[in-house]
């Protein structure tokens, strides 16, 4: 227990870093991913191709490979970011690919008639998306986006391989010093579970708020079967 008491600041710092990595990575991923999704359904062919290539690269590359490339590959071509931002960038790039596919797949759940109706009252591409399609699509996207969040939480642990001092790194270091492996793993495990289950619970609340009709379980099940959106590591 001393191992914990003496190192509370370090542990809190590690947990804080994990939260920061996750939140920043996830928020940026939402922005980038949505932009990519808009590009993928836009009438501009080169944008569609570019977004498709982006998705295929970043959902298929292992996160660890991506992080190592960003942290140690990019400096060799003249771009060096601090370790922490390497982690955020890696998480963003990877999660954004999944956000993009989930948003696109969500858009497809909106009845065709709605989009047609929107256009018939004179809304353009962006107007249709913003005012009619996306707000409805959001409902079916909540659960998949929760999955992306959990993926981001879990992925943040890999940042310890590039010297980001998040909670896995901290517990790992303390473990070497105090040889209290089990205790350390319990702490780290609890931190991750609280983050991911908390995120999932929050997602459930949001989902119920936007769509009183459907239960959480049902849509979570649907998300698991949605092949076009892909599964996140």
């Amino acid at each position, binding site marked *: 227990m001393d191992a914990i008491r003496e190192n509370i600041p370090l542990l809190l710092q590690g947990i804080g870093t994990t939260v920061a990595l996750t939140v920043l990575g996830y928020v940026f991923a939402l922005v980038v991913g949505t932009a990519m999704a808009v590009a993928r359904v836009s009438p501009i062919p080169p944008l569609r191709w570019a977004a498709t290539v982006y998705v295929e690269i970043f959902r298929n590359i292992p996160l660890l490979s991506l992080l*190592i490339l960003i*942290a*140690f590959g990019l*400096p*060799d071509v003249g771009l*060096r970011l601090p*370790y922490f931002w390497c982690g955020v960038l890696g998480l963003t790039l990877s999660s954004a690919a999944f956000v993009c596919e989930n948003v696109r797949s969500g858009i497809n759940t909106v009845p065709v008639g709605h989009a047609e109706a929107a256009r018939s009252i004179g809304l353009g591409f962006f107007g249709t998306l913003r005012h009619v399609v996306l707000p409805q699509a959001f409902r079916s996207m909540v659960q998949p986006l929760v999955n992306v969040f959990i993926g981001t939480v879990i992925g943040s642990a890999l940042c310890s*391989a*590039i*010297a980001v001092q998040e909670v896995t*790194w901290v517990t*790992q*270091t303390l473990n*070497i010093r105090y040889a209290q492996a089990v205790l350390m793993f319990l702490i780290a495990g609890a931190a991750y579970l609280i983050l991911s289950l908390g995120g999932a619970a929050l997602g459930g609340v949001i989902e119920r708020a936007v769509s009183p009709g459907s239960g959480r379980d049902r849509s979570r099940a649907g998300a698991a079967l949605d092949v076009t959106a892909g599964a996140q590591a």
Partner: protein
Amino acid sequence: MTHTSFRPRRRAIVAAAAALPLVGLAACGSDTGDGPDLGGAGGGDEEGSPFADVIASGPVAEDDAVAASAWAAAIKEKDQLIRGGTVANQVFSLASTTGGQPTGFDAGITQLLAKYILGEGGDEKVEYIDTTVETRETLVQNGTVDCVIATYSITPERLDVIDFAGPYYLSGTAIQVRTEDAEKISGPEDLTGTKVVTQANSTGIQAAEEFIPDYDASLVQTLPDNESCVAALKQGRADAYVLDQGVLLGNSAADPEVTVVGEPFVDDPYGIGLSQDSEGAVDFVNTFLQEIIDSGAWEALWTATIGEVIDTEAPEPPTPGDLPS
């Protein structure tokens, strides 16, 4: 025949790659880039190279001696020695992927030990399993490997969980910097306020903590492997890499951009990691070490490998069995 494409400061791998025969596609070196050959059939252990001569001259244990050690007898029984270590160190243990044996000081000790137990030709009956600083203890403990020979410093903490034969080489924790900074840093006293990188779970962390004046933990990065540490140093993420000299010498042998500076400032006696469950292992291996020291094989091996990167005579060999308390 002797075409290798390592850059100028490459004396270390002379031993490792003295006579790399170019195999297959690799033969068209100029057409296929100047990447180093990944070893070659025979590689540095080809007949006639100093390294191969050392292995060829290695002793073989009496059958009775092997039978007396349960550990050695088990290895003889399966006719294979499983060694944990790295195959990516230019001076101590460098891989060959095209059929040849790894070369280097640790690789030499490994092959001598295999020959000692398994008899003539035993040096080729080694299975090399990769271990890292973080995984060595576990893989010895659970019997995945018969022994770890991997620039492995004997420390009291490690002695708690595994046994060590040896020491078979006295190394020390040293400092590696970018070659252009070689003038500025010569010892741990110059590292105050410097960004330092080292490997997770290595002796480098404690060494830095103890010997850097006004040590600041927030300036120390730990990374999981040597490759990332070298990258961090070369890319300016850190200004000094503190680790055991054996690993660092391997790095500067392969890469002129990094240099080892000053003298080692903490003793790191290398041992051969063995499981505490292996009966008769430590004594058997110590007898082996004493034999190769007495026969001069140890010194010849040193000259053929480490001697290529250190400008001194071969040092006095350590006394096997003389463990730090």
